[in-house]
């Protein structure tokens, strides 16, 4: 029997309770001090040991990174509306704590696959704003050299196997990459980001089933923002707790709230460690909020009136972290000015980048 102590109600809100429930194979006694009562819950443990207190310094780095992603995406929206960016775009405003918390828990040699909403993951994985912005402008200096665009950001040097414009498209390859690591006995982890909409496509089920069957070191990060484009959870899934999907494969799962970066980091660390030490893949469900439309310019006619405003006021991960750290207005403004400058410089870099020659379109088709 393991004993887990919840010190703050916030921990529960952050989604740690379900995490605890799933961790242990045996029933455990849990004391919830904030409620002043004892409850018995099914399975547990490890969380207490795993839960690392992050230093304020590290959290301030997270804040900077999250703010950089926010300002980057706001800039991208603006430049898109100004007609400077070709194609179309999906931003992940509201989901920055997921990208930053998860990527911070990865090691350098690990690999990721991303989605059509990829700017945050890519920046958090270490690709420079210059390289991402240049890609959005279709320049050779872009992280995919102008061949990919917003939905196909790659950076192999940093273990980014690519954003995928097909929902669920990148999951099988993550199972396969993890299989390669297992074959070669390399202590590496392959991690896929995807949304709740992707849990209804075949690749999700086939990839998780195979990953668990072969106990490969993969982590499947479900960014549950409750919308599959414009279709709400209630219309696309018969469940609201997506950890239930893992049950079908006998896969370990962890659920965590996605608006606070620290619990996200902790949960991701736990999932990644689990996979890395050979205990098999993990489904990490991160409940989060998309504080914008599906695509830039989406009028969001499908969204209940007032929902967005309320979420922005109560669920902004940057505000939450700022409050957690007690960052003063002055400090924040200084930080904001720094990252905004960095983003503005990335736009300059991108605009001054090299256009591909039209004939370059015939390169890179075959190795």
């Amino acid at each position, binding site marked *: 029997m393991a004993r887990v102590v919840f010190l703050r109600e916030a921990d529960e809100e952050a989604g740690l309770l379900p995490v605890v429930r799933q961790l242990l194979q045996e029933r455990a006694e849990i004391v919830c001090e904030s409620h002043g009562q004892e409850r018995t819950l099914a399975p547990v443990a490890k969380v207490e040991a795993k839960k690392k207190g992050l230093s304020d310094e590290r959290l301030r780095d997270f804040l900077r990174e999250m703010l950089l992603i926010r300002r980057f995406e706001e800039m991208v929206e603006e430049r898109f509306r100004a007609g400077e960016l070709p194609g179309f775009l999906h931003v992940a405003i509201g989901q920055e704590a997921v990208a930053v918390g998860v990527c911070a828990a990865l090691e350098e040699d690990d690999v990721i696959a991303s989605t059509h909403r990829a700017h945050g993951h890519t920046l958090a994985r270490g690709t420079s704003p210059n390289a991402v912005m240049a890609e959005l402008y279709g320049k050779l200096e872009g992280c995919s050299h102008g061949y990919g665009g917003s939905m196909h950001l790659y950076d192999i040097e940093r273990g980014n196997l690519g954003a995928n414009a097909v929902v669920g*498209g990148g999951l099988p*390859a993550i199972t*396969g990459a993890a299989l390669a690591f297992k*074959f070669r006995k390399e202590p590496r982890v392959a991690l896929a980001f995807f949304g709740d909409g992707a849990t209804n496509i075949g690749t999700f089920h*086939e990839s998780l089933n*195979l990953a668990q069957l072969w106990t490969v070191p993969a982590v499947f990060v479900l960014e549950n923002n409750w919308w599959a484009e414009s279709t709400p959870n209630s219309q696309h899934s018969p469940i609201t707790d997506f950890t239930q999907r893992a049950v079908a494969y006998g896969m370990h799962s962890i659920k965590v709230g996605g608006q606070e970066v620290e619990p996200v980091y902790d949960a991701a660390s736990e999932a990644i460690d689990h996979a890395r030490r050979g205990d098999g893949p993990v489904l990490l469900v991160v409940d989060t909020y998309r504080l914008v439309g599906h695509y830039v310019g989406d009028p969001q006619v499908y969204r209940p009136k007032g929902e967005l405003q309320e979420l922005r006021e109560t669920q902004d991960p940057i505000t939450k972290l700022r409050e957690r750290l007690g960052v003063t207005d002055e400090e924040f403004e200084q930080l904001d000015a720094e990252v905004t400058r960095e983003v503005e410089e990335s736009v300059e870099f991108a605009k001054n980048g090299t256009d591909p020659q039209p004939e370059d379109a015939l390169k890179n088709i075959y190795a």
Partner: protein
Amino acid sequence: MPELTYREAVRDTLATAMRQDSDVFLMGEDIAEMGGSMGVTHGLVDEFGPERVRNTPISEMAIVGAGIGAAMQGMRPVVEIMYEDFLTLSTEQIVNQAAKHRYMSGGQLKVPLTIRTQGGAGWSPGAQHAQQLEAWFVHIPGLKVIFPSTPTDVRGMLWSAIYDDNPVIVFEHRLLYPVKEDVPEKLEPIPFGEARVVREGEDVTVVATGPMVHRSLEAAAEAEKNGVSVEVIDPRSLQPLDDKTIVTSVKKTNRAVVTHEAVTRMGFGAEVASVIQYQAFDWLDAPIERVGAKFAPLAFAPVMEQFLIPGPEDVLEGIYRTVGRNGD
């Protein structure tokens, strides 16, 4: 010179590659103890173990997709799709993922994945176990597609597929598996993009793939009796395609028949006919003939199936039509 069946030739290449290279491994449905539905991988699990000869769930998307992921990490997976009809299930992974990762990444990635599959009519499997779908995949930039017709060719070309840094789809044909042939003592890689002149002739060029190579040889022997000399060319690799060998032959014979077992309309042969038309128009003495399956799903009843798919007699008719039209 050892004599190998087509089936043994495939197995020989897989085993040879796995013996010398730990990056090569196999995944597919029923490929381990059962040896695959066609017995091609029979015995390999005994030599290489279940880690390298991996039975998979019935999950074509994950089979191909996991192959892509392992390939991106520098391994050389060979995945088997039991029937090419089931390629339809993995087409998203083949077309959107395997074929495009290199391109979309601006050249950062390689996907050295080999996808083996088989199909083909002639044994009444019905409409979902015998289609010939090569035309779907030759149309996709980023993929290579081969269709070897002999033990020697499949042995050497499968080797090239495994060691190609691009995704390659290897079409095998069910009726070819028992075909026997003396093969070189040592496995010789056969490069892609080099057609093989199977039979030399003067009057008509027949461009044939897979089983139609053998059916065309029968037709050619028959035509010979009537004084028509037929050259048979097997492109072997459909993408890349060796235009030159085909065009050179047609410039010599001035007539062409293009044949495959797949449905004629919109088939691979349409592209071959177009290549000939563009590059040898002034040399043509007759319209290019096309011989393939009639435009229908494959029927079950043997008489209907045989009616739909092309045989030697259909190729022969095609040959005679080109000769008959000569000088019209």
